[in-house]
């Protein structure tokens, strides 16, 4: 019975996969936060005589072309990559919820316009949208953030709209309305909170995709600019050296993959705990 009293995000940790995944995510976030404390190396000090060292006891994951410790850069890179994708998705969710809720609530031409634009962008690959936007805004963390936020806007608008549309017809909304509740009250107090769980969980899952997108933009040299490390940027530098020093690109890629897997596994456990699988799929 105590298990039921815990909030769903904690209960999700009790699933075998969810717990493992949650543990990894906590570890990555903690490492990112504590990076300066954890690492004896600096992420930006070059030591050319130490360049291209394979993994060793001194440099656990080896060094890059400037002799910088890769593990250190990976941990600092987590700061950039996680915060950029996290903030981008947060931005995207907020805008998407407002847009989706407004479209579902007001209906009519506004809904049709939003739906058309959203469907149109939804069929375009996120990477293309993001590439164009970064080209407009200019490379760097801000540009990447905005580009990712816009790239995922369609998804959250769709999801929120679908949620509100289903909830709109349900009896408790009718009841609230018959009790004289106003539009804003119903929308803010009844509809949005109920639509929140699926949107938040899909936001978490999208953060995983956003990490990949951020890495891809970084790979094209459009993400965080050197010497600030990001996972994508590290792989971009490593791609030119893939035959000479494969470890430079290998580890950031692995960390990205494992982190995204962890987000998905934890998300799955969360969906199971919240029992919202059907609602997640309805809008996909």
């Amino acid at each position, binding site marked *: 019975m105590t298990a039921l009293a815990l909030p769903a995000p904690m209960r999700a940790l009790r699933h075998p996969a969810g717990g493992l995944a949650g543990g990894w995510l906590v570890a990555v976030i903690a490492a990112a936060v504590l990076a300066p404390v954890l690492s004896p190396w600096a992420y930006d000090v070059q030591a050319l005589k130490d360049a291209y060292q394979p993994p060793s006891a001194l440099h656990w994951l080896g060094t890059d072309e400037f002799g910088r410790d890769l593990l250190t850069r990976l941990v600092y890179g987590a700061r950039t990559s996680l915060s950029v994708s996290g903030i981008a998705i947060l931005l995207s969710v907020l805008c998407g919820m407002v847009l989706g809720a407004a479209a579902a609530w007001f209906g009519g031409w506004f809904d049709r316009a939003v739906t058309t634009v959203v469907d*149109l962008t*939804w*069929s*375009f*690959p*996120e*990477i*293309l949208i993001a*590439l*164009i936007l970064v*080209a*407009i805004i*200019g490379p760097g963390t801000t540009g990447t953030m905005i580009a990712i936020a816009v790239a995922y806007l369609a998804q959250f608008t769709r999801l929120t709209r679908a949620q509100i549309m289903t909830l709109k017809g349900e009896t408790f909304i009718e009841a609230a309305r018959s009790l004289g509740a106003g539009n804003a009250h119903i929308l803010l107090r009844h509809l949005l909170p109920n639509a929140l769980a699926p949107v938040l969980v899909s936001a978490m899952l999208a953060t*995983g995709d956003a990490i*990949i997108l951020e*890495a*891809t933009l970084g*790979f*094209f040299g459009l993400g965080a600019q050197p010497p600030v490390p990001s996972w*994508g940027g590290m*792989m971009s530098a490593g*791609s030119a050296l*893939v*035959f000479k020093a*494969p470890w430079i*690109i*290998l580890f*950031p*890629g692995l960390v*990205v*993959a494992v982190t*995204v*897997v962890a987000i*998905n*596994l934890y998300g799955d456990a969360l969906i199971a705990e919240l029992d919202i699988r059907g609602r997640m*799929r309805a809008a996909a």
Partner: protein
Amino acid sequence: MLSWLIRRVLMLVPVFLAVSVVIFSILHFIPGDPIDNLLKPGSSPTARAEMEVRYGLDRPLPVQYGIWLSKVVRGDLGTAIVARRPVADLIAQALPHSLRLGGLALLFSSLFGVVLGVVAALNRGRWPDRVIMGGVLLGSTMPSFWLGLILMLAFSVWLGWFPVSGARGWSSLVLPVLTIGLGGTALITRITRVAMIEASGRDFVTLLHAKGLSPLRIQLRHVLRHALIPVVTILALRIGWILGGAVTVEVVFARPGLGTLLIKSLSQHDYPVVQACLLMLAMAVMLGTLLGDILQAAMDPRVRAALS
């Protein structure tokens, strides 16, 4: 049926116009003047103005759009500012490579995705399901450029089975197709599995069992047929995804194609080429949705009935 098809194709016209406006205007927000790339440092303002007139950059935007669109419709995509060749030529050179790569990747992922999805659904909750879904999860979480480089490292450099890069011969296609295809396979496997499980819970399946049909026949002839309807729909909507994958992978494998052309012209601020590339990709997406609708109508008599 035919009238529906005509109406459906005509519906693409406003979409095409909207997309063309977006593509045209977005490109004019991009900072960085392509003229700068063309002029020698220290050129006179007169030379600059001449250049602007030559590429029509001195007119108001709506006029520029009108001129551009009327040319595009006639197949004239303008002249590349940097490459100084007709854009149509560049596209014509790049397109077959992208189509071959995208088409094969689509085929690969549809085939493997459906097969894996069916196997996973038939073994729901047992180890084959877990293994497949685990692999699918892993496959969909690796950045495609990274996967491409790792595959290149393993199969081209260490094993020497395939060429490292370029587009000579079919063997150069294997790794790029695999790289894009794995992501697509993950998507299709997931949809197929869910659709199969959902379809096998339907009422009519119980009656099929009650008729004494064998479970395998029910799954493959009836359940799969239903499951394929959402698979085709989503696949058609997501053709763009495959193309998006192609963009990155083309760059990684240094293959000629729309993706490489797009990335190169983006960095060179070569408007006409970028516009043409985006237009091609947009058309592919639109044709994909059209194809999806047609396939859906072909597969589901209820959809056909709703159309006529």
